[in-house]
C-alpha cells in the first residue's frame, strides 16, 4: 500500500455509507481470521437494483476504505452485475496497487457482498 494513496486514507478516515441499515434485505459478516479485519454489509434492493449498501466493521485501511469505495461503486447495480466483480475490478476502483499480501484485505468487502447475494440466491 502506498502511504500517499490519499483516496484510501480519505475513505479510511471518513468512511461513506458507514453504519447499520434499518430494513436491509440482506446482511452478511465477513472476517479475515489472520488479521482481525471485520466487515458486516447491509444491502437493500429496489426491484433488481441495489438501492442502498452500508457497512460496519473494523480493520486495516485497505479493508475498511475498500468497502467504503466499493459501496459507492455498487449502488445502482443489479445483482447479476455485482456477482461478476473480481480482483481486477477492485484494483481499478481503488486506483492503487494492491500487493499479493493485501489480497485478502482488499477482497473482504466484495466477498461479504457477494456472499450475501449468493447465499440468498440459494435460499430463495
Amino acid at each position, binding site marked *: *500500500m*502506498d*502511504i*500517499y494513496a490519499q483516496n484510501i*486514507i480519505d475513505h*479510511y*478516515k471518513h468512511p461513506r455509507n458507514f453504519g447499520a441499515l434499518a430494513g436491509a434485505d440482506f446482511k452478511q459478516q465477513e472476517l479475515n481470521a*489472520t*488479521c*482481525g*479485519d471485520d466487515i458486516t454489509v447491509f444491502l437493500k434492493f429496489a426491484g433488481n437494483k441495489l438501492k442502498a449498501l452500508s457497512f460496519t466493521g*473494523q*480493520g*486495516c*485501511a*485497505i479493508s475498511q476504505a475498500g468497502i467504503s469505495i466499493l459501496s459507492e461503486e455498487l449502488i445502482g447495480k443489479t445483482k447479476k452485475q455485482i456477482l461478476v466483480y473480481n480482483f481486477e475490478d477492485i484494483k481499478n476502483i481503488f486506483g492503487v496497487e494492491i*500487493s499479493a*499480501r*493485501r489480497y485478502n*484485505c482488499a477482497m473482504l468487502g466484495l466477498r461479504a457482498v457477494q456472499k450475501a447475494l449468493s447465499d440468498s440466491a440459494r435460499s430463495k
Partner: protein
Amino acid sequence: MIRRNDFPILNKKIKDQSLVYFDNASTAQKSRSVIEAISNFYKNDNANVHRGLNPLADAATKKYEVARSLVADFIGAQKEEIIFTSGATAGINLVARSWGEANLQAGDIVVLSIAEHHANIVPWLQLQEKIGIKLEYIPLKADGSWDLVAAKKLLNKRRVKLLAISQVSNVLGIINPASQLIKLAKQKGIVTLIDAAQSVAHLKIDVKRLGCDFLVFSGHKLGGPTGIGVLYGRQELLLAMPPFMGGGDMISFVDTDSFGVNELPYKFEAGTPNIAGVIGLGAAIKYLEGVGHHNIEIQEQQLTTYFLQKIKKLTAVKILGTAKAKLPIFALTIKGVHPHDAADILGQAGIILRAGHHCAQPLHDYLGAPATLRASLSFYNTKGEIDYFISRLQELIRAFK
C-alpha cells in the same frame, strides 16, 4: 565482537533502501559461517547418519554428534539429554504426547501463562480434548510481567502436574523470573517445561541452574536454519517416557511381532534426521559463542534503552509490556494506523516488521488489542536503524492523521 558484515542478507536492498531487519523474533538472519557449514556438508560429507559402515557415513555421523555436544554444552546439559526435533513446537508436542499421555489424567492441571505462544497452548488443549486435563493461565500485571502472587496461588492448587511457560514472551519481550516459579513447582513435585524459543538467542541458558525438567527451542531463532530444534529433557524423565514416533534409529531391534527401544537420545529421533540442519545449528551456536553472550546482552540492552527513549516521544504509539527486564522485542499499537497498514507501508521502506497477533491470540484478547505491530531487534541491529524506523513511523502517523 559484533560484526554486522558476517550476515550477507543485511547488505540487501529493497527498492534501493537498505534492509532494516526488525523481525528477529520471527526468525534470525544467518551468518556466513552457518550458510557455509550447511553448504560444505552437502558438498563434502553428505551421507545418512548412524547407519553406514563407510567413511562418508562416519564423517556425517561425527559432524552430527559433534553438533549435539555443542548444543549440550551450550545449555549445560548431557549429550544424552539433547533430542533433535524440527523446532520448539515439535518439542512441546513430543512432551505432550509422550510424557503427557503417560502421566496426566482427567482433572489434572497444566499451568501456562496467558502470554504463551500457540505452540505452548494448543498441544495442551489437545490433551484437554483427549483426556480431560484442565488448563490454568498465569495472569499478567499491567507492565506485562507475570503476576507472581496469582502464579503461586495457581501452583498451590491440588492436581497441578505440569508448569509449562515461556521464559520470554514473543510479543512483549519481558524476561520473566522462570527459575523462581520452577523452584516453587519443584517443591510441590510439579514437572516443569520451559519454552526458550525467544530467550535462547538473547540470554545465557543453563538448564541445571534453571532447574527445569524440559526445555525447548528452535534453531532458526538463534541464527541456525529452519526445521531444526532441540528438546532438552532430564535424563530420568526421558528414560521413563514411552517413545513418541516409531521408525528407524529409535529401535534396538524389530521383529514381526515386537520392537525394542534404542537408548537415549536416539529413542526420540525416529527417521533420518535433519543432518544439515543439526550441523547448521552447531555452526550457529559456535558463532554466537564467538560473539559472546556478554557482548550480545550489552548491545541488546543498549538497543532496548535507545528504542524506548525514541519511541516515547511519539505520543500516538503505545508499547505493550513495559516491565524493566526486557529484550529488544516491542509490540506497538499506533493511534489511527492499523498494524497491517504499518507493516505493509514500512516494509516498502525496507523495514521488515511483523503485524498481527504473533501466534499469541489469547494474549492479544487479554490485552484488548486485536493486533500489534512488532519490532524485534538483534545484536546486529544499530541505533541508526532505529532512527530510520522512527522517522518513517512519524511520516506514517502524519499521513494517517
